[in-house]
């Protein structure tokens, strides 16, 4: 045993000056204070959201379309369904491309070209969502000549792809090389190995990445402003303007009507609950469904 702890060794060290010790305590206090200051808004937002939202969620809110200004009641049912519709379109467009690009990077992309894709994906992740909205407007809305759910889906898909690509790559690289070799050794072609062995093993991680991307775009408002545009009525056609929950919250929040403010809070609470449930449900299903991957 080293004897650094005995009394004589301690006395050899000069006592720490009082001023330095006070500084130490003060700085610890300051660090604690920053934690409190950061957590206060978090709890303030959540408590306020629940407090204002719970009272406003009722059956009408979840089943009816918006009432005209001045009439009480009505709800956001069309916006909730519209959001799900736009997100569905975005996932259909974005998930295969994102996962495919991730597979390319992990299995074939250990080169300059792969690095270029990797860097591009990181850069795309930082592009402001409103700019993506402009591009979706230019590509889809200007061609179709009107706002549409599809345009919203394209905008959100562009935002999902980089995240999915990078997480899929990371997850596939975690799969031990021995598994791939074992498959090759059995004479299984490489594409089969990638799909049935590598991707299958990484399923849980890949889906987590997809859900991360999904949760990130589910609350996006800016790229939908001039793509999906919003709608007071039901719409489930991809080429028509469609209501979306975040858009509806925005419109109601900046309106001067108390009734609409109340519904904006309810909408915000529903939005957060839906995002959390969607993510939790998929993760739960993945855990149950694939053995050994969880």
């Amino acid at each position, binding site marked *: 045993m080293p004897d650094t702890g005995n009394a004589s060794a301690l006395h050899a060290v000069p006592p720490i000056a009082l001023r330095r010790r006070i500084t130490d305590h003060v700085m610890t206090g300051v660090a604690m204070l*920053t934690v409190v200051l950061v957590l206060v808004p978090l709890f303030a*937002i959540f408590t306020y959201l629940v407090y204002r939202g719970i009272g406003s969620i009722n059956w009408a809110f979840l089943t009816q379309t918006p009432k005209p200004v001045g009439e009480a009641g009505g709800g956001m049912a069309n916006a909730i369904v519209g959001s799900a519709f736009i997100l569905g379109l975005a996932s259909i467009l974005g998930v295969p491309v994102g996962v495919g690009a991730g597979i390319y990077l992990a299995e074939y992309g250990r080169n300059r070209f792969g690095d270029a894709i990797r860097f591009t994906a990181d850069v795309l992740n930082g592009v402001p969502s409103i700019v993506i909205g402009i591009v979706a407007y230019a590509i889809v809305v200007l061609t179709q000549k009107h706002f549409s759910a599809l345009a919203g889906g394209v905008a959100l898909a562009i935002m999902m792809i980089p995240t999915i690509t990078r997480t899929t790559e990371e997850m596939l690289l975690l799969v031990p090389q021995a598994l*791939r070799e074992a498959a090759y050794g059995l004479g299984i072609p490489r*594409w089969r190995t990638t799909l049935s062995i590598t991707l299958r093993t990484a399923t849980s991680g890949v889906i987590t990445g997809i859900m991360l991307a999904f949760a990130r775009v589910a*609350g996006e408002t800016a790229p939908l402003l001039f793509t999906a545009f919003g709608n007071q009525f039901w719409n489930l056609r991809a080429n028509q303007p469609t209501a979306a929950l975040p858009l509806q919250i*925005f419109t109601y929040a900046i309106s001067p009507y108390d009734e609409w403010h109340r519904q*904006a809070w309810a909408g915000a609470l529903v939005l957060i609950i839906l995002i959390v449930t969607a993510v939790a449900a998929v993760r739960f299903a993945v855990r149950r469904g694939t053995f050994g991957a969880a």
Partner: protein
Amino acid sequence: MALPALPQPDMPAPQPVEDTKVNGLRPAGEWAAPVLRGTSGETGDRIFKFAMLVCGVAVLAMLVLIVYELVLRSGPSWHAFGFKFFAGHDWDPVNEQFGALPFIYGTLVSSLLALIIAVPLSVGVAVFTTEMCPKVFRGPLSFFVELLAAIPSVVYGLWAIFVLVPILSNYVQPFLARTLGWTGFFDGPPYGISMLAAGIILAIMIIPIISSITREVLMVVPQHQREAALALGATRWEMIRVGVLRNARAGIMGGIILGLGRALGETMAVTMVIGNRPEIAKSLFAPGYTMASVLANEFSEATGDVYLSALIEIGLALFLVTIVVNALARLLVWTVTRGQPSRANA
């Protein structure tokens, strides 16, 4: 059915692998010996590789498409105003006179204000979680801070309108006007809706980014740096200052710049509280306008080619700035989190 034949002599032999940088894994490519040569496996492989390549190229294509569309469609405005577009004060859709300076000013001021508020708080939180707090609380604490990142922008805006803005106009702004009003940054009527409100809500939104990157960077500072400082008799704070923060400077800077990139492009929450007036005012109590908010408010109502292309040119400028800012940040963070451990091992 015959068993697959043994590997033929002309088959490429497995190469000795040099590239082991990815978790010690070998790149898949060099091991893919097609055992079933000439059977469906090889054609399947080609098709599969091509399909995956298409997906990869799609990622590149998206960036090219964004640049192409923005440049193409901002053409009319560029031809009409040239560089004056970024120096002009007037934003007059009726007479088709467009100058983006008030928006650029608003974006810069609100983002800088956000950084001034967010940087000390985020670094403080990161230092506390990595260096000071008991191990049990580390997980929950970082979870809570990252939960802030999961709240949609529009919900921040909603909260800001109904909670933050009243607090500002009733308590904070009168107090600031009394104590610091003489500086000129804090005078004028305390309406709440202001550049100040935008800066604060942006700060809350970028704290999770800066603090999570700072935490990552602090965690890769080699343990012996801390031990060395402590062995020299440093107190814990001195150890953090000399042994940890000084080593992590570049990475923290990267996190801050990444936060800046997010703040510059943030749209909804800012649009809801900044007041949306294209004016340049010294006081932070005055309303302003940012590049992202003008797009959010006016894009779908823009009539006329020049108006629309002026807005798209603002989008292009915003895009270019965030690209540069993000690339810079990634570079800084990469050099720290990737370079440091390998240098420590060498």
